[in-house]
């Protein structure tokens, strides 16, 4: 049993934090948002140059052979800076899906991701699906897919779209569609947390099949488990920053002739935020350590446990941060509202609290 980081992991965390400190602040983030793609490709390239996208791939495939612990550290730093880019799709989702493909496919597709040339995304949820495990309607027929996907992160901007579809025999498959492919239409929009997403429509769109059947089901579950672990780490980072911003604010804000942070009523609300955040820190580690567990049920229940705790903590810390900021917390000009919005979106990402409570309850909870 060991929760300590090794030197390489500490270095990764520090260098990414430094990189983001130079490139992300409130004004800069607003500028990136205003770019046509809603994020800055130069920053994406910077991640690639740091080796972030090589982390999850095995060394003999041009990667670094990192573990979910590295992904956790990346997530925490990204959450801290409230970054805009779809890094989880690149670091958690794409490598897990590609692991199910042939070696040749894997090499060809991974190269573009590792180099930073290709931004990947994951098109799985469909209109009419509320939960992520409902049946798919998108069809594959003779190497072409037809159907619709909803709330696809940077769906219009991404270069590689990993798509799920069912074949004639009803088996789920994982496919790759390139940006601008024939028959692909996108309707792009901004999300609550100032990222971008899109509705995608495929109409006989050429798609490269990675895998199908049970192997696809397993790969999807692995990919979403890793994304979930990454998301819990991201929310930890966002909570840490939300608490820091809030504490800084109540130390400086004076009412009744003294800083409001000297009032015990406010102090105890903030202290409870620390209690919540510290538990998410533990759960981010738990999720990272369990998301590759060979036993699928053990893995899923562990991640659901971590996500439920994260949702409760995130809601407390987010709401508390706005409350303690008072009126200015409600405004666009203060960064805290943007953290609150991101935290809220992370609560509903990769299965919301109800989804994960359902999974736990159906199994009778964690095994003793």
């Amino acid at each position, binding site marked *: *049993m*060991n*929760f*300590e*980081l090794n030197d390489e992991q500490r270095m990764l965390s520090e260098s990414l934090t430094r990189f983001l400190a130079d490139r992300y602040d409130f004004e800069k983030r607003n500028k990136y948002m205003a770019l046509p793609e809603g994020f800055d490709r130069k920053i994406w390239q910077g991640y690639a140059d740091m080796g972030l996208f090589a982390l999850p791939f095995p060394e003999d495939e041009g990667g670094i052979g990192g573990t979910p*612990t590295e992904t956790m550290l990346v997530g925490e730093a990204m959450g801290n800076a409230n970054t805009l880019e779809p890094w989880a799709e690149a670091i958690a989702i794409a490598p897990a899906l590609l692991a199910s493909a042939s070696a040749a496919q894997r090499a060809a597709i991974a190269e573009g991701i590792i180099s930073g040339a290709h931004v990947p995304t994951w098109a799985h949820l469909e209109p009419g699906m509320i939960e992520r495990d409902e049946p798919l309607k998108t069809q594959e027929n003779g190497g072409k897919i037809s159907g619709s996907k909803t709330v696809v992160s940077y769906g219009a901007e991404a270069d590689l779209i990993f798509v799920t579809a069912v074949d004639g025999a009803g088996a789920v498959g994982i496919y790759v569609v390139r940006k601008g492919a024939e028959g692909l239409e996108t309707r792009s929009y901004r999300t609550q947390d100032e990222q971008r997403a899109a509705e995608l429509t495929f109409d006989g769109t050429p798609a490269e099949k990675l895998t199908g059947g049970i192997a696809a089901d397993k790969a999807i579950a692995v990919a979403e488990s890793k994304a979930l672990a990454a998301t819990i780490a991201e929310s930890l980072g966002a909570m840490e920053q939300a*608490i820091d911003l809030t*504490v800084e604010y*109540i*130390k400086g804000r004076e009412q009744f002739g003294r800083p409001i*942070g*000297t009032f*015990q009523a*406010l*102090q*105890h609300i*903030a*202290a*409870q935020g*620390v*209690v919540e955040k*510290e*538990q998410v*820190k*533990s*759960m981010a*580690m*738990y999720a*990272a*350590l*369990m998301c590759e567990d060979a036993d699928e049920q053990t893995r899923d229940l562990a991640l659901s*446990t971590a996500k*439920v*705790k994260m949702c409760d903590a995130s809601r407390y810390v987010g709401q508390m941060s706005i409350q303690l900021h008072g009126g200015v917390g409600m405004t666009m000009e203060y960064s805290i509202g943007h953290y609150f919005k991101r935290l809220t979106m992370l609560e509903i990402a990769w299965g919301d609290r109800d989804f994960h*409570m359902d999974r*736990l*309850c159906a199994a*009778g*909870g*964690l095994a*003793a």
Partner: protein
Amino acid sequence: MDLKFTPEEEAFRQEVRDFIDANLPAETREHLKLGNAPTKEMTVQWQKILNKKGWATPRWPEEWGGPGWSVTQQYIFQQENQSAPAPDPLGFGVNMVGPVIIQFGNEEQKKRFLPGIANLDDWWCQGFSEPGAGSDLAGLKTRAVRDGDHWVVNGQKTWTTLAQHADWIFALVRTDPDVKKQEGISFLLIDMKSPGVEVHPIQTMDGGHEVNSVFFTDVRVPAENMVGEVNKGWTYAKFLLGNERLGAPRVGSSMAKLEELKEIAKSRIVRGKPLWDHPRFRDKFVEAQVELKALEMTVMRVLSGIEAGADQSKPDPATSVIKIKGAQMVQRMTELYVEAAGEQAAPWLDAEGANAQVGPDWTIRAAPNYFNMRKSSIYGGSDQVQKGIISKAILGL
């Protein structure tokens, strides 16, 4: 990072489990399983068995009879002992006064007191709180005045747990009333048989007699019974309280109670089906499990930091988190038992005897334990004291 225990640690866990299975008296196990506190005899009997094996004092250095375990092994032992369930070794002795004597006491004191603490030949109680000194412990007034080779003690301690069984009390006493309140306190070991010591029971709302008031009237205590230096008692008290932090959460005990509750729910038929199959119960069960897992991971994270040699002088937010959440989980377990018992929790068996039994045995202790465990967010630094610590030491407010 690695969540798995090493094969050596797993083997150790098995060894502990096997030893407990082979040696824990069945009567004690059954008594605790039903939610009862151990009797004095049960605690003494079990601690003597553990001490014979060399396991009664997991945190003590080997020189003084400790088993030489890593913090992880200490945690595993505690978890196994609590989940058996077996009585804890008496904390006032082995986790509180013992380490203080080892750290700050003289050789004479070590030789005189440590063997009796380990073997529970001497039952110790804690004389800290006073009617006027609760959360503001440093405001204590019990006075010790030097008279030749003795200290003469006058005053009152309260909430003294199991003082009715005690042979000795370790007490914080005021030895200098004229300095800053933290700087005039000393740490004194007092024989409970000394003339002038009186123990008065306090009945708590669950009907139990666990805590007491202890009165000192001109009690003469030999000067050699003072631990460390005069007026340094506050330092020793802080050391003592800091030592307790990983024992407080009782994760092993809460986990065992939750598993027990699952078994109860499976056999309890409500509206024609097991309580276990009622979605509202299942939700509560799972939510408690989620919270308990987060607590367990936080405890393990702190243990891992200690193993890795983390700086123990810096405040770690996880410590106060563990105190607050540990207390909350202990309390939550008791609530779930009352909710599972329903109206069968109403009869007061302790007051009325078997005449008042209406439900299965586990329903008897449901309500009293719920009432009793409200203490866990009050003692050892209340939730509000912990939040004050977080506000100041962590957030700098």
